C-alpha cells in the first residue's frame, strides 16, 4: 500500500469513514487470513474464528489508530498475533505439539545440523505434519513483527523493498531486523523442542 493511500485510510478510520474501513479490509483480509492459517494450521473453522476475532477487535479500535505508532499492516497484524497467542494458550494441554516434540526427539541424525544448514533436511521430514506443527508453534512464540517479516520474506518471497514499504522503514532496517528474526526463530525452535508443550500454569 502506498503512503498516500495509507494516510487517507488512517484519516478515514479516525473520522469513522465506512469507506476507509472497507479499503482496509479489502487490502488486508486475505493476507491476515493467509498468515493466520500458516500459524495455526489448516482447520478452516479455527482459522475463521481467529480471523473473525481479529477483524472485529480491529473494527472496535480502528478509530484510535495512530499512524505515528506504525503502519496499518503492523497494527492489524499485532491484533492478529494476539488472537493467535490466545488460541495457543487455550490449547491446554497442546496434544499436537506434544506429539510433534516426541517425534522430533525420536528422529535419528543431527537435527540441529539441518537448521544450521550443514546438511539437507530429508524430504520426508520436510513433508511431515509434525515438523509443520513445530514450526507453527515456534513462529507463534515470536513477536508480531518478526512473524510478519519471516513469513513475508521466506514464504511469500517478497523482496526487502516491498517489505520495507509495508513496515514503513528502510531496506537496511528490514535486513537488520530479518537477521534478528532468524536468530529469534532458531532460539525459539530449540526451546520448543527442549521443553514440555504449552503448559505454564500459575499455582498458588
Amino acid at each position, binding site marked *: 500500500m502506498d503512503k498516500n493511500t495509507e494516510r487517507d485510510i488512517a484519516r478515514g478510520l479516525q473520522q*469513522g469513514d465506512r469507506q476507509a*474501513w*472497507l479499503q482496509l*479490509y479489502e487490502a488486508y*483480509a*486475505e493476507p491476515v*487470513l*493467509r498468515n493466520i*492459517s*500458516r*500459524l495455526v*494450521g*489448516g*482447520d478452516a*473453522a*479455527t482459522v*475463521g*474464528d481467529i480471523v*473473525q476475532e481479529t*477483524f*472485529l*477487535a*480491529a*473494527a*472496535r*479500535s*480502528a478509530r*484510535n489508530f495512530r499512524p505515528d505508532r506504525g503502519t496499518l499492516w503492523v497494527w492489524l497484524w*499485532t491484533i492478529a498475533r*494476539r*488472537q493467535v497467542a*490466545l*488460541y495457543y494458550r*487455550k490449547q491446554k494441554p497442546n496434544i499436537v505439539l506434544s506429539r510433534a516434540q516426541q517425534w522430533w526427539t525420536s528422529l535419528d541424525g543431527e537435527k*540441529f545440523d539441518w*537448521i544450521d*544448514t550443514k546438511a539437507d*533436511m530429508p524430504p520426508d521430514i*520436510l*513433508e511431515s*505434519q509434525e*515438523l*509443520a506443527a513445530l*514450526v*507453527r508453534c515456534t513462529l507463534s*512464540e515470536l513477536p508480531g513483527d518478526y512473524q510478519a517479516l*519471516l*513469513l513475508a520474506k*521466506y*514464504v511469500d*518471497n517478497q523482496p526487502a523493498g516491498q517489505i520495507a514499504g509495508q513496515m514503513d522503514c528502510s531496506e537496511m532496517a528490514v535486513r537488520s531486523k*530479518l*537477521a534478528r528474526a*532468524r*536468530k529469534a526463530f*532458531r532460539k525459539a525452535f530449540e526451546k520448543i523442542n527442549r521443553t514440555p508443550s504449552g503448559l*505454564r*500454569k*500459575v499455582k*498458588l
Partner: protein
Amino acid sequence: MNFEDDKQKNKRLSQLLSVTEKNVAGPDKKFLDKLQEKSTAEFMASCANKNSKTTLPIWRIIMKSNITKFAAAAIIIVVVILSISLWDKSNSTAYAFEQTLEAFRDVQTIHLFGRDLRDSNFEMWVQLNSDTGMPDYCRLYTPSDNYLAVSRPDKSYQYNEKTNRVQITSGMLLGHMEFAPAYMFEELIKYSKMENTDIKVDINYEHDPESDKTLILAIYETPIEKWKIFIDPDTKLPVRLNLLSETHRMGLVFKDVDKIEYNLDFPEGIFDFEIPEGAQVIEQ
C-alpha cells in the same frame, strides 16, 4: 545456527518456513464477504455516539470450532443477558447488560482486592490491551504466602519472599492472571444466545451501606461454580464478587473480590520486576 543472508541458507530457511503452508486451504470467499459485512457494521457501531440508545451489536459468525468454549480458569465473570431490562427500585432507571459491556470498552486498568480459596488476601493490578481487552500486564501479591507474580508479554516472574526464589517464564503467565472481564463478558453473551445451556442467572438489588447505593446484584450459576456479582448502577461496572460454590478447583483462585477500581493511574514500574540480591533463579 548461522542464518547469514546468503542464497543457500535463505533457501533452507525458506524450505523450513514453507512447511507452514502444509494443508492450508485457500481463502473462503463466502466467509470473507460475510466477515466484511459484520466487521463493517462493528466499525460503524463503534464510531456511533456513545450516548446513543442503539443496542451495541455483538455478532459472531457461528463456526464449528471449539475455540469459544467457556474457560474454567479463575477469571472474574460478568453475567450478560441481552435484551433484559431491569428497573432500579429507587429511581426506575432501566439497566441492560449491554451497558456493562460498553463500559468495559473504556477500561484500561483494573485494581482489585480480595481473598482466594484459602482465605489468603490478595491484591492485583491489571493493564488491559486497548485492542483486545486482554491483559498485557498483571501483578498479583499475596502477603500471607509471601508470593508475588508479575506477568508480562515478554517474561514473567514468580517470587517467593520467604525462600528468596524467583521463577522466570517466557511470555505471560496463564490461568488466573488472564483477568479479562470484557473478553469473558463477550464469551458469556455467546453462551446466553445458545439454547439448552446450563447457565442460570437471577437478578436482584441490594443496598450497599458503604456506598449508600442500591447495587445491581446478579447471581450467576454454571455446573461448576456459582457467583454473586455486584454492579454499580452509575458506572455499570462490577464492584464486588463472591464465589458461593465451586466444584472444579483447577486454576480457580478468587473467592471474594471486595473492591474493584478502574482506570487508576498505576505507580511507575508497577509491572517491572528486579531480581532481589542473592535470589535463587529458575528459568523455565
